[in-house]
């Protein structure tokens, strides 16, 4: 079991619940949220080490949430998920200080590797 504190944020409930379960099967306790605002409120209670954040969400967008996280929780690492297959969102995110970005559909091992790197990195990228 890992003691990593991971928060998954994606408006696709089916996706995020399944992903959380798969991570849990691999010993990663992942919380989840389908709404940006809710995710920020969850962070107020218990800031995670790593946030896996979808870019395109209704309401508060992934990049908006990212801005708030970077402002309020500079130590939290954010891995951006993009469904656009485009590097553009990734590059935007990188400029805004995300740890890394991944494109959907995900490779679970790749995601775990990124989480591992994020947790173990001492400093924010």
């Amino acid at each position, binding site marked *: 079991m890992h003691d990593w504190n991971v928060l998954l944020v994606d408006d696709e409930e089916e996706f995020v619940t*399944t992903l959380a379960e798969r991570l849990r099967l691999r010993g990663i306790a992942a919380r989840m949220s389908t709404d940006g605002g809710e995710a920020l409120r969850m962070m107020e209670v218990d800031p995670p080490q790593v946030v896996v954040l979808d870019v395109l969400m209704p309401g508060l967008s992934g990049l908006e949430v990212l801005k708030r996280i970077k402002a309020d929780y500079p130590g939290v690492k954010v891995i951006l998920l993009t469904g656009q*297959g485009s590097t553009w969102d990734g590059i935007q995110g990188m400029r805004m200080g995300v740890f890394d970005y991944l494109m959907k*559909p995900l490779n679970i091992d790749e995601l775990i590797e990124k989480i591992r790197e994020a947790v173990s990195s001492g400093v924010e990228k």
Partner: protein
Amino acid sequence: MSIKNWFKKVNLLHMPEEGAVHDRYSVLRRNMIILMILVTLIPLLLMAVVNYHQYRTALKGEIVNPLRILVNKTKHSFELFLAERLSAVSFIASAYSFDELADENTLNRIFRVMRREFRGFVDLGLIDSKGIQLSYVGPYDLKGKDYAEQSWFHEVQVRGGYISDVFMGYRKFPHIVIAVQHRTETGRTWILRATVDTEKFDDLIESMGLDASSDAFLLNKNGVFQTPSKFYGGVLEQFPLSLPPVSYDASVLEEHDSRGQDVFVSYAYFVHPAYILVVVKPKADVLKTWYTLKSELAILFIISAGIIILAVFKLTGALVGRIRESDEKREAVFREMQHTHKLSSIGRLAAGVAHEINNPMAIVNEKAGLMKDLIEYAADFPEKAKFLSLADAILQSVQRCRSITHRLLGFARRMEVQIEVLDVNDILQETLTFLQKEALYRNLDLRLNMAEDLPRITSDRGQLQQVFLNILNNAFAAVEDGGMVGIATWEKDPDTIAVAISDDGTGMSEETQKHIFEPFFTTKGGKGTGLGLPITYGIVKKLGGEIEVHSKEGKGTTMTVYLPKRPKESAGG
């Protein structure tokens, strides 16, 4: 209809939209030729016609006026000749008494003086009021001859003085009679009559100095020749043409004579006697200069028209060629714009589709992944291997979809340009590293012919890599194992470098070559997305370059990419 409306109606510069391209330009060319020939030849023709008439009038004046002057002058000579002789006879009739004149010795003396002083007198006689010739001097024996019944006798009694028409009379040669009636204070009348031969008439006509083809003669008021004509008849014969209208000043007519010739007839009527002096000149001789000038004018017109027509043909050929070239360029640009627009529209559509598919695919991916996880983690799952294989198949299909949607999105976004100065040879080498294993495995013959001094260019590394990778992938796919793939680079011109990637593979048909840059066109069946070359094309255009394809079925393909050394103004927009 105004000229403007006419042009609008005729619309010679209109090019039909319908019909084959060749026909449309032929029609335009034909119309332009007609228009230009009309515009240039009509003024030329008008000028030629005006010149023709001006020259003709001027020349006619030059020809006709001297003729008129000559006729007037000669007429005056005739009149003077006759007037002198009439005066002489009149003077003698006044100066001498009847008795003196009745005396043949005196008459003879007077006659001798007259002949000495005035040429042409043949005889002289005194005739009494009854018409009997009382005295006579001359070559004939005419004393006692009775003239009472002759018309001239009556006329001289009425007029007092008389000059006859030419007649043969008793003398059997052409002559005229000049007679003067004298009336004494006592009322006695008698007539002094002289005969004059008409040789002098011939001399006067001779002195006109006419050329051989011209003719001059005297007619009386009935059209009877008073002097012989060269062409129309002898003395006392009838003039074959109609008499000209009365004019005492010299006039000129244009006639068609009895010999079938067009002639100028110059004439003048005498006041007394009623003679008509006529000069006939053939037009052909008179207008020889004019005919020469007319021929020269015609030749000049034909040559000018020929030059104009030739120039018009050449000019319109060149002009229509330019228009056609310009139209073709415009159409090419338009086609390119359409192609770009098509790519861009398809790109936007593709981005939307890809995004919408990606999210459900992500769910499928996770669900199948979880399913696989659960099966793997379960200790005793029935038919575990089979279910794992099924889950893997789902995951593989998802991966396949992922690669398709990623390429679609890559095509859509065209990626952002990150400009830097770079060495294209290096980029090609880097790109080749992705493919070197495959080349080794398939025993491909990689032939590199890269210019060592290839200038560095300002462009985007990532996009160039994608371009070269796409083309190299196609080349690798086209060749058999052991086949050849070549890469060459060179400086095309001071602004451009070229990269050619060639293979000796299957090559492409002309039909295939037409479509290779169209999205979703593929020759690889299910293996290809049909987006590789459209993406490549889009990137190259975005970087301000060009891409050329030369291919022959069974021989291979060469794709040449031309890249600007510096980004063009429009590139990267």
